[in-house]
């Protein structure tokens, strides 16, 4: 038999959780503890050490106890009562020790005022009136200290009680609402007491105004932290018979004093900052306003976020009647906020602001602001209140937790989501409380030191590995909040149309429509129908859609046209729903679903392409899929697709099908901003050139097959205009010249006839409706225009240009670039036109005058009826034509001996001219900027509207869509036109000087 040796005292102390057992042991021997810690029982169950060890920080609690008792001994009979009480009353002991272990700041207070120990041991819940009466009494009879100090001391005495009840609760998150409400009541009481002091300081004049203090933010919502700025708004009315101005001067004085009384550091410390920044006009506005002035401001000027802030307004101090009048005046407006004009864009902006405004360095430690922080919960809840509180009065609570419960009860948030969110919110708040309580500092950051983390974990009841567990739990809650924050807004929308789980109350169709409107959907009823179609049923497909849609709705809502996005998504899903890879791709491929949603809601053009070719969704899965393919690769695929068909029509359709998917690829790259304007122009030109090449081959073969002839001639397609310049956009025609050169020995008549047949067939094949947007082939720039033959032989061109060539033809040829057909003919044709477009010696003065006159005449004649000269992309002032004519005139005059100018690209030639000093830097910049902007806007118009547009869109919604594609942000409307007109005006000024000559 062995008997266990009794545990040594130091070992026992260590086992109990003291981190410095030797020091603890020494402290336990301290004479200050006489009568409390009998040596033998110090490590026994129920003994002093064991009681201390239950606190968050046993070492700190022990040291605190010694200090408090020493101080008590020095102040008369205090120690006797305290020791006696602690010896016999376990509850009292638990409460006092819990405070000593959790808050160094409150230990310091007890050391300074040991007589306050009863505030902790005998703590009871107190109501707001009781708290107020106590603080007002304290400042009314401050004794030897200044009233501001008396306020601080009395405030902390009550704080002791709140902390004691909070800290001994089994579960800090369970008592959180009571704790937070008590803190708010205490803050309100302090404001009242401070006002009493301020009035006394001001003297009789104080009676000339009736000042009310309205709490906002967490104080207003009765959900305050231990230490936080107290947000307030001051409202005042003149007393009877006093002029308003005079009364407001006094009221401002009182308010200023009140703020200083609370925030100033005195020998007794400071309470907290009083923050009046939520008042009308913020920091620039007057500190105090009358009720009428507040109302006028909110009626006329207030922004949406200010109404969100008003949700929490609650009069807490000063003149109750004035406070009530204020709330009566502004409260109804809160619930009208969602009907305001800018509500939707404001809400979108607010959401972004919340997400953007986190200081990077602290983001990882932020309990309040970081992703998944408290602010996320509060923001979601308040937004839902604003949207639905208009129709449903049960939601009009100022407290986050109450509002959350009401939202859940009303079916506005899924019940499970609400429960998880509430638990996370309570836990995070409790965490924040414990962090702040330690030093009574206003902080929302997780501590970093091991010791602080350990104390924090223990304070939250985590006894095993407290430092690690608290961090782990914090991260888990954050993730949960983040996840729910993202779907809380969108998921219930599905519950309106599909049953998600049986316990859930369904969101009513009216509420769903209100929420969709708030998200920017213009046809909420239609959107609901699409959601229903996508999610109803028990299929696996519907189940996956129910997972996907909440988050996809958010992405749709980020864009200018969510309705179209959702509709297109529905069509594509109907088409592809059954294919095995489609939903898997969206669910599993990271950003594919996000890209799809943004693309569809941003661009009708891309949406329409995708509806025709849903399989292209696959491009979205990786970056490689969104890179435009080189011309050679596109051509190879078109050729092989066309080669598999015998019928020429079928062959060209096959090639055009490839063009369709490649157009989608380019559009997605463009929308995603991964390619520049020149790259876009090159990619679009590549597609056109490859299609022309393929079609030319198919047509030539078909003509030979039909007539039984051998090929008699070599054909060439020369790109003109934007096609020649490699600068095509979505809406561009293909401007071309057709050239042929009879093969050796062929009959010229027969060759001309064959070439004509081929060209006619080519134009017909491409002009037909097909899977891709039609490509209009326009040969209008050919010699003799519409009266001339569609195709000429090289010899005929040579003869024509030798005899007839006009300056405007030379100008058009500047951009001539062979794009399809026989390379030999291309070489010979190029050689022929070089001497015309870059005439040696440049232009004669008469020719320069001719070009200038032509342009001046065009300006007065060519603009279509009803078009606005200021905003027409092509022919308007400072538009594309102005820029191109400047460049082309320079090329005609100087390219013969400045080879750098010999390029078909407008921007390329402009840059070269600038380098050569032919155009001033300032003018070149103005011209290039306008050309780029007009081209980009024209492309963006096609992307957004699905059809080309000649001028800056004036219709608000189109303008907004175009502005977003341009990256100008939301609310572009008139700013877009303004922006364009400004850039074009500068280009016009440059044009007038450079082209017509100053």
């Amino acid at each position, binding site marked *: 038999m062995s008997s266990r040796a009794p545990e040594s005292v130091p070992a026992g102390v260590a086992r109990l959780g003291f981190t410095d057992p030797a020091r603890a042991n020494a402290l336990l021997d301290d004479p200050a503890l006489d009568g409390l810690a009998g040596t033998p029982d110090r490590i026994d169950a129920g003994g002093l050490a064991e009681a201390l060890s239950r606190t968050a920080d046993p070492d700190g609690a022990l040291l605190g106890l010694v200090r408090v008792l020493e101080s008590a001994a020095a102040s008369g009979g205090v120690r006797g009562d305290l020791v006696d009480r602690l010896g016999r009353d376990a509850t009292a002991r638990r409460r006092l020790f819990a405070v000593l272990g959790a808050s160094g700041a409150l230990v310091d207070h007890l050391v300074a005022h040991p007589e306050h120990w009863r505030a902790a041991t005998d703590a009871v819940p107190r109501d707001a009136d009781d708290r107020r009466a106590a603080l007002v009494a304290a400042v009314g009879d401050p004794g030897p200290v200044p009233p501001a100090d008396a306020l601080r001391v009395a405030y902390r005495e009550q704080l002791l009680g709140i902390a004691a009840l909070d800290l001994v609760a089994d579960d800090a998150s369970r008592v959180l609402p009571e704790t937070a409400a008590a803190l708010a009541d205490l803050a309100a009481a302090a404001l009242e007491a401070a006002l009493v002091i301020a009035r006394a300081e001001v003297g009789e004049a104080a009676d000339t105004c009736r000042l009310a203090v309205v709490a906002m933010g967490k104080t207003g919502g009765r959900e305050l932290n231990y230490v936080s700025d107290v947000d307030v708004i001051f409202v005042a009315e003149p007393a009877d018979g006093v002029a308003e101005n005079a009364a407001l001067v006094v009221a401002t004085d009182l308010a200023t004093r009140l703020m200083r009384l609370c925030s100033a550091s005195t020998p007794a410390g400071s309470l907290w900052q009083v923050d009046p920044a939520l008042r009308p006009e913020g920091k620039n506005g007057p500190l105090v306003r009358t009720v009428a002035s507040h109302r006028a401001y909110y009626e006329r000027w207030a922004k949406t976020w200010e109404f969100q802030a008003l949700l929490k307004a609650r009069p807490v101090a000063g003149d109750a009647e004035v406070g009530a009048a204020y709330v009566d005046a502004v409260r109804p407006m809160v619930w009208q906020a969602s009907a305001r004009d800018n509500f939707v864009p404001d809400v979108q902006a607010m959401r972004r602001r919340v997400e953007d405004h986190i200081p990077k360095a602290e983001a990882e430690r932020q309990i309040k602001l970081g992703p998944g922080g408290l602010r996320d919960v509060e923001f979601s809840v308040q937004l839902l209140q604003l949207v639905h509180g208009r129709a449903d009065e049960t939601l009009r609570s100022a407290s986050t937790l109450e509002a959350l419960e009401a939202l859940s009860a009303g079916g506005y948030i899924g019940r499970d989501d609400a429960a998880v969110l509430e638990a996370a919110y309570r836990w995070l708040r409790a965490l924040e409380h414990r962090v702040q309580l330690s030093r009574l500092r206003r902080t929302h950051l997780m501590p970093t030191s091991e010791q602080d983390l350990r104390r924090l974990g223990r304070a939250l009841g985590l006894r095993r590995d407290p430092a690690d567990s608290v961090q782990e739990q914090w991260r888990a809650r954050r993730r949960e909040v983040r996840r729910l924050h993202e779907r809380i807004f969108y998921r219930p929308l599905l519950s309106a149309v599909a049953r998600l789980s049986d316990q859930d109350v369904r969101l009513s169709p009216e509420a769903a429509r209100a929420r969709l409107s708030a998200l920017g959907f213009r046809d909420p009823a239609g959107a609901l129908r699409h959601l229903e179609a996508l999610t109803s049923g028990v299929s696996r497909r519907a189940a996956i859609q129910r997972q996907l849609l909440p988050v996809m709705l958010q992405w749709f809502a980020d864009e200018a046209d969510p309705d179209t996005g959702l509709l297109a998504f529905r069509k594509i899903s109907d088409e592809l729903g059954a294919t095995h890879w489609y939903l898997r791709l969206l669910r599993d491929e990271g950003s594919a679903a996000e890209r799809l949603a943004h693309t569809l809601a941003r661009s009708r053009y891309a949406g329409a392409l995708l509806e025709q070719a849903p399989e292209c969704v696959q491009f979205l899965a990786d970056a490689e899929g969104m890179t435009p393919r080189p011309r050679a690769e596109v051509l190879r695929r078109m050729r092989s697709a066309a080669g598999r068909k015998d019928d020429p029509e079928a062959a060209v359709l096959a090639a055009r099908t490839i063009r369709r998917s490649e157009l989608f690829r380019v559009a997605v790259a463009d929308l995603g901003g991964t390619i520049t304007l020149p790259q876009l122009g090159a990619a679009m030109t590549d597609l056109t050139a490859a299609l022309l090449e393929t079609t030319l081959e198919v047509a030539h073969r078909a003509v030979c097959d039909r007539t039984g002839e051998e090929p008699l001639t070599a054909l060439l397609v020369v790109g003109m205009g934007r096609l020649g310049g490699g600068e095509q956009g979505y809406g561009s025609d293909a401007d071309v010249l057709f050239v042929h050169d009879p093969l050796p020995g062929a009959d010229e008549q027969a060759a001309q006839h064959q070439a004509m047949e081929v060209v006619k067939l080519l134009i017909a094949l491409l002009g037909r409706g097909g899977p891709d947007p039609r490509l209009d082939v326009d040969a209008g720039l050919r010699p003799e225009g519409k009266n001339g033959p569609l195709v000429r032989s090289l010899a005929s061109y040579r003869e024509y240009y030798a005899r007839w060539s006009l300056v405007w033809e030379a100008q058009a040829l500047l951009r001539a670039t062979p794009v399809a057909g026989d390379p030999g003919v291309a070489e010979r044709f190029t050689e022929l036109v070089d001497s015309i477009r870059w005439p040696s010696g440049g232009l004669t003065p008469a020719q320069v005058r001719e070009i200038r006159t032509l342009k001046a005449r065009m300006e007065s004649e060519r603009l279509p009826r009803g078009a606005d000269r200021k905003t027409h992309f092509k022919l308007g002032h400072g538009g594309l034509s102005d820029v191109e004519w400047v460049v082309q005139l320079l090329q005609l005059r100087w390219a013969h001996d400045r080879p750098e100018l010999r390029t078909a690209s407008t921007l390329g030639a402009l840059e070269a001219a600038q380098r050569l000093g032919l155009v001033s830097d300032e003018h070149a910049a103005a011209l290039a900027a306008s050309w780029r902007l007009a081209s980009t806007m024209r492309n963006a118009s096609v992307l957004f509207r699905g059809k080309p547009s000649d001028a800056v869109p004036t219709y608000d*919604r189109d303008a907004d869509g175009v502005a977003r594609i341009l990256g100008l942000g939301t609310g572009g409307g008139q700013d877009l036109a303004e922006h364009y007109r400004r850039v074009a005006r500068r280009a016009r000024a440059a044009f007038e000087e450079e082209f017509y000559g100053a």
Partner: protein
Amino acid sequence: MDRQQEFVLRTIEERDIRFVRLWFTDVLGTLKSVAIAPAELEGAFAEGIGFDGSSIEGFVRVYESDMLAQPDPGTFQVLPWRGDTGGTARMFCDISTPDGSRSMADPRNVLQRALAKAADMGFTFYTHPEIEFYLLKPGWVPGTAPEPIDTSGYFDHTPHGSSADFRRAAITMLETMGISVEFSHHEAGPGQNEIDLRYADALSTADNVMTFRTVVKEVALEQGIYASFMPKVFAQHPGSGMHTHMSLFEGDTNAFHEPGAPYQLSKVGRQFIAGLLHHGAETAAVTNQWVNSYKRLWGGGEAPAHLTWGHNNRSALVRVPMYKPDKGQSTRVEVRSIDTACNPYLTYAVLLAAGLKGIEEGYELPQETEDDVWSLTDSERRAMGIRPLPASLSEAIEIMEDSELVAETLGEHVFDFFLRNKRAEWLDYRNQVTAFELERYLPSL
């Protein structure tokens, strides 16, 4: 329906208003008015009143001419001259396009945008105009010289003078309409009078100027005389200006005030003046928008023709008035070029923008000019770096054409319309053969 709108509807009922005039201003500063019956007002608040903008100077191009006038209930006033029962009231309107966005052509919107920019920088803009005008005998016949109603001079007290009666009647009417008058007196020219309005934010001031002109014309009509705001009626007498005192406030404090600085003028104040001077030539076409305006500017006397500033220097473009030691809040600058026939919305917008630009860019304030600029020789002025204002409307237009500041402030639409309209006015003027030419050339050539 907000409370202000309710208040308007109630007042209309209580005061037995039969017509409501919706007022707005075209780009050239002419007051436009649409009358509606009270029954239509609720709809007007909700959706605006449609009108054809194509017939309003500078509003729209013909093919998209539908515009909406949305009354601003904060500007509701009963018009006193229509009699007290069964009367007429007016409200100023904001103009919008059918899709609900504010019209870029609405001068009120131009000023509101400039004020919003000031607000972004933390400023509110206050102005206080001194409006001069001539009272003439009615029934002027083209080809004859207009006749003033009296022959008094500056501050003269004219017994039984109809000027005094007139001013009393006009001021009473203005006060009835809630427009406070600070000061009024007989001006230097015969029949010339001045009435000063009280300090107010610039938008209210501009609204008040529009009302003021109407009231003055209306009262003159009642008294059988004719009132004119033409900048220069008589070659030999002073023209009519609208000197305007300006200040910026940051919250409740005057941003121009700095105790102990020269003239108590803060850095912000100095930079504001520097901005006004730097951009003075570009903004002239707006502040002095008529061919006739330049006859006043270059007519000598108290009209400033040079870009200078000074303390109590009445020949300077910008004057810093005497500082009253107990009134820190009253530190302000006075711009003296503006004439009474300007569009007050556009004028205040461009001047504010010029001043703000000075603050943004931190312009250095040139040296103060203490001399009477008129008495200096050309070489002296050149040596002192004193630049002139444009000599004519034509020159002003040319300078304004190159102004990014004015384009940005007016918005491209108004900028473009304004230039086109003014160019046309200049061409019309150039086509005239004037009395001067006939008198000088006909006898000898």
